[in-house]
């Protein structure tokens, strides 16, 4: 780096420092009070209404897959009853679906396993393409039936093969698609109800998680004892 470049970059860094410091404010008796809670800092509950990203057909297939992964049983309701399809729909319509926090410009190369997912497609696109692939496969193999119309054994067989890396579709790695589906159904079942899933806090009741409480000091010493804490959502009115 020559002298001119060095000076320029120092100037740029200083300018950045100044820009950053204009956002900070010293708290003193002249500060605006009370600090309150700006709306931008609050959790954002999902929007009302029907599906935003999924078509009705896609939603039906995703529900069938999710309910095979988390079926209704003695521990709780099924994934679709708990709102996991709605949860995933809103996530795919939002920043997660757009891979907003992921670097996706080139160069596109196959990464090593240690480098984590190396996909060009966004999660939303992976669902769209993956579901078409799965649907085509099922209709070819089972006399025109979609995944949702198959019996339990057939569905389990397909998902098991995908998970084991033995079944892939055009444009979709079956193992990676399975991992995405499993991740999202778990998130939906266990995340705060304001995001659409975990209806009646079924997931939290199942694992004994008491929810969004600020403070556990009264319980810290009660090791190994049932606490019987009713879980709480980020928002009281949600359930």
């Amino acid at each position, binding site marked *: 780096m020559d002298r001119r470049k060095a000076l320029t970059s120092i100037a740029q860094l200083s300018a950045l420092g100044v820009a950053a410091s204009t956002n900070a404010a010293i708290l*003193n*008796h002249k500060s605006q009070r009370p*600090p309150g*809670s700006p709306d931008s800092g*609050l959790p954002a509950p999902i929007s009302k209404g029907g599906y935003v990203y999924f078509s009705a057909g896609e939603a039906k297939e995703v529900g069938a897959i999710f309910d095979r992964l988390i079926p209704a049983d003695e521990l709780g309701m099924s994934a679709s009853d708990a709102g996991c399809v709605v949860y995933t729909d809103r996530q795919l319509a939002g920043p997660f679906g757009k891979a907003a926090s992921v670097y996706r410009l080139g160069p596109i190369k196959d990464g090593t396993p240690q480098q984590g997912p190396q996909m060009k497609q966004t999660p939303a696109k992976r669902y769209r393409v993956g579901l078409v692939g799965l649907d085509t496969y099922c209709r070819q193999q089972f006399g025109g039936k979609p995944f949702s119309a198959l019996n339990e054994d057939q569905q389990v067989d397909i998902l098991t093969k995908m998970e084991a890396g033995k079944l892939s579709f055009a444009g979709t790695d079956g193992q990676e698609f399975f991992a995405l589906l499993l991740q999202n159904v778990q998130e939906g079942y266990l995340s705060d109800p304001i995001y659409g899933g975990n209806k009646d806090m079924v997931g939290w009741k199942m694992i004994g998680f008491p929810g969004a409480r600020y*403070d556990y000091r009264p319980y810290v010493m009660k090791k190994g004892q049932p606490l019987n804490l009713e879980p709480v959502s980020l928002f*009281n009115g949600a359930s």
Partner: protein
Amino acid sequence: MIMKKIIWLVVLVVVIVAGAMLYRGGNVSTDNVADDTIKAADASPVSDAAAIKRGAYVAVAADCVACHNAPGSSEAFAGGYGLKTPFGVITSTNITPDRETGIGNWTERDFFRAVRHGKSPHGLLYPAMPYNAYVKLSDQDMHDLWAYMRTVKPVSKTNAPDQLGFPYNIRLMMAGWNMLFFDNSPFKSSEDQSADWNRGAYLVDGAGHCASCHTPKNGLGGDITSEYLQGYTLQGWFAPEIAGNPHVGLGNWSNQDIAGYLKTGSNTKAVASGPMAEAVENSTQHMTDADLAAIATYLKSVKGSNDAAPQPLAETDAQMSHGKQLYEVNCSACHNVQGQGLEGMVTAFAGNPAIQSHGHGSLIQTVLKGGRAAITDSNPTGAGMPSFAWKLSDADIADVLTYVRNSWGNAAGPINADEVKSSRQSLDVRQPMAVPN
């Protein structure tokens, strides 16, 4: 004929008495000790640094800047702060020595009359300017204050008009107000009390003008003197009793509790927030330890209200059990498991008289809007409380406050959801978040 004479006699007596009272209320002869020739903005004939310094201290003790400064403005004493009274908005004036827009053309006597008697060269002042307290200021303090005010940087800023409806916009009406409610008498020290007590009384009733917020007012804004310092609601905030009731006043506070609170903004029992935080920040934290100790001595001697502690609500009460759950989830992390707060940061609830007072305005307002602890030189943290308006419904807030008022030894009446609802409306605070089920 005789009857008519009697009636005339009665009328005559009434007129004479009213005239005498009017004269007494309007009597400004005590201000004649002040010079009436030199104007504020004139070149200063003497510059007495010690007097200016003492005057700056009087200005701090009187907290002039609390009102005579627009929020966020760096132009001290230039006015522009809108005081929301029950009668309308009264905007504070420019008291910098600017000739056109401030008090630059006032003489010292004009200044004395305005501060101690509510009579400015432009007409009668409204008692939002607490001349009914400042009338107690000594000649010496007034001379010093004048010396200081003349050194303030003149700011050219035209006064904003008040927004008062008829008939309150008639300033002459204040002559009648003064006749009824203005105790036009200088401070009189009490022979059978200590010098410390007398200094405290002088500061509390004079410069400190504590009664302006802490003494209940009648329908015309006059002090109800029989309930001196026993708590009052102003601008939606309840200024709690600072007299001797142990339950809702300072009866259980030590002198050190009081002095420490005024110096640092908090003690083990409470943390100043809202308008009192401003009073601590602008005024009391800058007062000498001796003066704060004197204030404590005096306040501890003031007889409190007779409000006895009621029976606390039962834990099985529906509001209480719901409130308990809400408290644990939303409040306990900072206000602590047993409502003991965090010393110097987060106010305690247990045993806090302000929490158990009959006025709920401050409690509801703080939950709805959030709050911030006083920020002082000795305790600059200024811990903040977030707003819970987005999260808690009117009933939730009523229940959790009812729980706080009736737990850990506290006892006070329940709070009704309707009260929270109307506060939410009047404070223009958002409704709770809508979450689709």
